C-alpha cells in the first residue's frame, strides 16, 4: 500500500518534470502552474481535514497571511523573494499557532464556525485597513521573484518553482504522515478518547498539525502572490476555501496522492467549464453535493477500492 503510493507520487513527479518540456502554449502552462499551487494548498488542507479529521473552514486565513506577508515584504521592505517567502510561511505558522491554540479545544461544529470566523475577520481587516493592505484595491504590481541575477518571468520558470515548492511541501506531508506524529493524528481522528487513553494528547497533536498546515499554506500564498502579481482581500474569502475543499474531497482526503489528483481535476474542470462561465459555480456546488453523497473517499479512495476488489 505504502510502496504503491510512493511509486505513484514519484511517477507523478517525473511526469510533472518532463511533460512541460514539450509544452509551448502559455495558457496551458498557466493551468499547470495553478495546478502546482493548488496541489500544495490542497495538501496543506488535507493535513487538517484528512489526517487530523477536523473541518477547518478558515484555511484561507493562512493562505492570505502568506500572500500579503510576502507581497508586502518584497514591496515595502525590499526583501528578496526567498526571504519574503520564508517570512510568509513563518507568519502563517504563527497565525496557525494562535488560531489553533484558541480553537482546537472546540467540538466539531463549533470548530468549523470559529475557524471560518477568523478567516472572515481577516478578510474584513484586509478590506478596511487601507494603510496596511491598500484595502479593496489590494497590493498590485508585485515584483517577480529573483534569485540573485536570475529573474523569473517565463511561465516555465514559474512552473518549475511551483513544482519544486509543491514537491517539497508534499514531501513534508509524507514525512509527517509516516512519522509517529502523523499516526497519532490519525488515531485522534478515528477516536479521540481512545487516543487520549493511550497517552496521545489530542490538543498538542492537533496544534502541531495545524501549524504545519498553516506554514505550507503560507508558502503557497507567497507563490500565488508573486505569480499573479496581485493580492486582494478576496484571498481570505470563501471562494478559495470551497475550491480547496472540493480538491481534497474529490481527490481523496487522508491520502497523499488525493490532493494532487484533486488539484489537477478541479483546475482542468474550471477551465473546461469556462465556456459555461455563469453556471460554473452552480456546477461546482452540485458536484460537491454529489461527491459527498456518492464518492466520499474521492478518486484515491475509488482507486483503492478497485485495487482491493481486483
Amino acid at each position, binding site marked *: 500500500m505504502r510502496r504503491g503510493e510512493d511509486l505513484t507520487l514519484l511517477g507523478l513527479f517525473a511526469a510533472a518534470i518532463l511533460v512541460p518540456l514539450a509544452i509551448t502554449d502559455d495558457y496551458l502552462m498557466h493551468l499547470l502552474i495553478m495546478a502546482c499551487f493548488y496541489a500544495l494548498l490542497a495538501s496543506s488542507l488535507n493535513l487538517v481535514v484528512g489526517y487530523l479529521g477536523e473541518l477547518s473552514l478558515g484555511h484561507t486565513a493562512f493562505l492570505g497571511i502568506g500572500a500579503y506577508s510576502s507581497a508586502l515584504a518584497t514591496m515595502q521592505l525590499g526583501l528578496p523573494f526567498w526571504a519574503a517567502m520564508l517570512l510568509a510561511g513563518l507568519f502563517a505558522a504563527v497565525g496557525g499557532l494562535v488560531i489553533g491554540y484558541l480553537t482546537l479545544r472546540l467540538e466539531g*461544529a463549533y470548530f468549523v464556525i*470559529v475557524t471560518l470566523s477568523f478567516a472572515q475577520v481577516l478578510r474584513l481587516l484586509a478590506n478596511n485597513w487601507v494603510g496596511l493592505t491598500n484595502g479593496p484595491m489590494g497590493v498590485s504590481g508585485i515584483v517577480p521573484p529573483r534569485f540573485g541575477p536570475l529573474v523569473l518571468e517565463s511561465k516555465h520558470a514559474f512552473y518549475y518553482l511551483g513544482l519544486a515548492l509543491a514537491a517539497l511541501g508534499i514531501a513534508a506531508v509524507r514525512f509527517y504522515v509516516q512519522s509517529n506524529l502523523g499516526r497519532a493524528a490519525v488515531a485522534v481522528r478515528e477516536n479521540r478518547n481512545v487516543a487520549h487513553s493511550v497517552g496521545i494528547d489530542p490538543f498538542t497533536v492537533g496544534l502541531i498539525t495545524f501549524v504545519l498546515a498553516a506554514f505550507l499554506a503560507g508558502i503557497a500564498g507567497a507563490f500565488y502572490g508573486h505569480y499573479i502579481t496581485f493580492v486582494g482581500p478576496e484571498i481570505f474569502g470563501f471562494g478559495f476555501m470551497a475550491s480547496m475543499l472540493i480538491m481534497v*474531497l474529490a481527490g481523496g482526503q487522508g491520502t497523499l496522492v488525493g490532493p494532487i489528483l484533486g488539484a489537477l481535476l478541479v483546475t482542468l474542470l474550471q477551465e473546461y467549464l469556462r465556456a459555461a462561465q455563469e*453556471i460554473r459555480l452552480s456546477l461546482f456546488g452540485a458536484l*460537491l453535493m454529489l461527491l*459527498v453523497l456518492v464518492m466520499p473517499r474521492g478518486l484515491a479512495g475509488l482507486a483503492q477500492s478497485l485495487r482491493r476488489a481486483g
Partner: protein
Amino acid sequence: MVELALQFIVNGLVTGAFYALSGLGLTLIFGIMKVVNFAHGEFYMLGGMLGYYFAGVVGLDYYLTIVIVVAAMGAFGWLVERGLIRPLRSKEILTTALATIGLSIFLVNTTLVVAGSTPQRIPTPFPSKPILLGPIVLNEARIFAVAIGAVAIFTAHLLIRRTELGRAMRATFQQREAAALVGIDVERVYGITFALGTAMAALSGVLLCSIFAAQPTVGDLISLKSFVVVILGGMGSFAGAVVGGLLLGVAESLWGGFFATGYQDLVGFVFVILILLLRPQGLFKTEVARV
C-alpha cells in the same frame, strides 16, 4: 448624540428581530437536530427573492406572498432533508456540513444566473412615510415586519412546548432510539423540523427584504450570523436565540454607527470567537462543549 444612539438601538432591534427569527430556524436545525446547515442563509435569501418574484414581478398581494413563500420554502426544506440530509444522517456531522456547503454554493449561483445580481425591494402595501416616536424614526413596514416576526417566534414556541408534534420533536432529539421505541415516526419528525427551520429562515428573508433589498449574495453572511446567534444564545435555547439575535443586531448597529460601517460585520465574528473561548455553552445553557 443620545438621539443618535437611540436611533441606532432601534434600528438594531429591527435587524436583530430578523437575526433572531433566522437564528431560531437554525436553532431547530443546528441546535436540536445537530445538522451544520451552511445553506441556511440561502434559505433566507430564497425567501427574499421569491417574495420579490411573487409580489414584485407577478404582482400578487403582499400578505398572500408571505404565505406562499413560507409554505413553498417549508416544502423545499422538507425535500432538502429527504434528499441530502437523510442519506448522510449516519455519517459524521462534518459530512453533512460539506454537503450543505455544496448546496449553498449551488443555490447562490443558480439564483444569480436566474435572477441577476441587482438588489430588488419587495413592494409592500405600507406607505413609506416615516413615523416619529420622539427622536426616533420608524415606518409602518418595519413595525409590521417585526410584529409578524414576533408572532412567528411565539407560535414556534407554542408548537414546541404545547403540541403533540412538539413533544415528539423534543423526544426525538433527546434520545432517538427511545423515541422510535415509543412509536414516534422519527423520520417524519426530522423532515418536519428541518422544514420548519427553513420556513423560519425564509420568513425572515421575505420580511427583511421588504425593508431592505433582496439580493442573491446576502446568504453567506446571514448563514454565519445565524450560527453566531445560535451559539451566542446556547444551542437549542429558544430564549437564547431571541436574545442573541437582538443583541447582535443592536451591537452591530451601534458599532457600525459610531465606529465604522465597513467593520460592522466584524461584530458577529468577534462575538462568536469570544463566546466560544470564554463561555462555550452560550449565554443561556449550562453544559460545556468539549475536553
